[in-house]
């Protein structure tokens, strides 16, 4: 067995996902403390560009599986390729970002290898015996556990948004193009892929500041005030929603935060007109600083908020946008 820490980097159209690059950067920190090195694994139609990005953010080696057979994500093709590489190279750990693809792929790989998997880790560390260990903050924040996979490698998915990709190192990685058997047809055929019309906005999971609105926004127009506040904070801010607001179509469902939506862990989370139901808290309890703006002084969100404002969000939010804009000049 090697001491290498692998990170599976997913990509689309030659662009690595920020969520997986963030894990590469975090793994590089871990590797430095345990004497291993970070290997990014890229499965893509053409992996060169993605490999370079993985190197820029901390991978010393990149193993690439490429070819037209990998033009669209396929659980079966990816699992076969990764299982083949793991069996050949025997890494110490295989880490995934807990994105939709990570959640689809990691358990399938673990089961193919006949071992367990830790999902949704909120911190990574190295134990005295050199094993990667996972910390999980679970049961809606009621339980903190440290766990490992009983066999090797340590396979885990890491909650998105907790780590940020590092500044580019300018170091080119060693790229190894791997030869794996061609994938068998998998039974799942991609009919179409419709990209989100993000208009260049930052993804919710990658944002440093998340301004989110709940049922109290009252309609799609209500969110204009939140967009103005996000704009005042600058390009690192994104707008999210509680379930009722996303359900009503006031914001796309891709912006829903909570147990059935996205998990975010920004530096600053501003909850506007959100009561603080446990299903919502599950998606934002990792935020560093929580601000709540709510007209009901008894709202449960105030129990988790570091800073609370009791008041009408339609008065407070625009005033806050002005004050933030003035402060940032």
């Amino acid at each position, binding site marked *: 067995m090697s001491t290498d820490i692998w990170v599976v980097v997913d990509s689309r159209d030659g662009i690595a996902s920020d969520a997986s690059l963030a894990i590469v950067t975090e793994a590089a920190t871990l590797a430095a403390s345990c004497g291993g090195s970070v290997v990014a694994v890229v499965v893509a139609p053409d992996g060169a560009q993605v490999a370079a990005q993985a190197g820029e953010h901390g991978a010393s080696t990149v193993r690439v599986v490429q070819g037209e057979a990998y033009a669209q994500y396929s659980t079966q093709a990816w699992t076969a390729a990764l299982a083949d590489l793991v069996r050949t190279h025997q890494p110490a750990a295989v880490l995934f970002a807990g994105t*939709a693809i990570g959640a689809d792929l990691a358990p399938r790989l*673990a089961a193919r290898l006949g071992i367990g998997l830790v999902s949704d880790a909120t911190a990574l560390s190295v134990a005295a015996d050199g094993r990667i260990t996972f910390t999980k903050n679970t049961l809606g924040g009621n339980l903190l556990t440290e766990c*490992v996979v009983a066999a090797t490698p340590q396979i885990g998915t890491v909650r998105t948004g907790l780590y940020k990709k590092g500044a580019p190192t300018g170091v080119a990685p060693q790229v190894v193009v791997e030869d794996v058997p061609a994938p068998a047809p998998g039974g*799942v055929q991609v009919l179409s*892929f419709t990209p989100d019309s993000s208009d260049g906005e930052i993804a919710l999971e990658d944002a440093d500041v998340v301004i989110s609105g709940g049922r109290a926004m009252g309609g799609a127009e209500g969110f204009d005030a939140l967009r103005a506040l996000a704009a005042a904070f600058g390009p690192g801010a994104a707008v999210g929603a509680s379930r009722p607001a996303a359900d009503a179509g006031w914001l796309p469902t891709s912006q829903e935060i909570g147990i059935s939506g996205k998990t975010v862990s920004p530096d600053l989370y501003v909850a506007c007109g959100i009561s603080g139901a446990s299903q919502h808290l599950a998606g934002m309890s990792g935020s560093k600083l929580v601000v709540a703006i709510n007209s009901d002084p008894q709202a449960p969100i105030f*129990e988790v908020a570091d800073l609370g*404002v009791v008041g009408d969000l339609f008065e407070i939010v625009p005033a806050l946008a002005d004050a*933030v804009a003035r402060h940032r000049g």
Partner: protein
Amino acid sequence: MKILVLVKQVPTDLGAVKLNEDHTLDRTAAGVQLNPVDKNALEAAVQLTEQLGGEVTVLSMGPATVKATLKECVAVGAHRGVAITDEAFAGSDAWATARVLAAAVRHLGGFDLVLAGKQSFDGGTGEVPVMVAELLDLPQVTGVTALEGAADALVCTQVLDGGQAKVQVALPAVVTVDEYVNTPRYPSVKSKLAANKASFDQLTNAELAVPEVGLAASGTTILSATRPPARQPGARVEGDTPAQVAENLVAALVAAHVL
């Protein structure tokens, strides 16, 4: 179409789940309910059989109380329920659970489709159905938000990172659904009464013969488990006018180094 739905019984109140000395969980004070998103999986199954004909079986591994959960399922359209209960399964993680469920699916046999929730309300790993798919060597589609069925294939919509994919999966397959896939129906008084009379098949490891089960078969090891310290209630930010509140809030954000 013969459809199997995997349903899990979960606590209603996660805050009332207690931690035992040996890192296992004591759920006795936490109430029980059918895992919310499993209602959507069941509804999807019932709708498919209403369109295409067929039968819906619900399968649950858990303590003797899972019968109540199976009843709830029969009241909203399941035709048959199977409980897998065996003390030897205590302490199972996702991998150990998946091996028992996969053995049960094989034992029952002949399903065109296995439906499950995207994740449970308590453990919430989302691993179980995916591992079941691998153990049965079936294709999988996870986190489906819309579903159209035909006799030999399903067309599923999935929210992926950066967009929405529409995929077609050949049957048999394992499909997990999101809460957006449909709105589950409510039981009627009549269907509840009928469900009360339902009887369920029961499986133990005597029938399934899974070689390793429970804690010993688990793929993960818990090294420590603690209750995190309760978050201290934060400070109130006040002011006479919204503008003043905003100024005070900005000052607090600057002091906390987030602005």
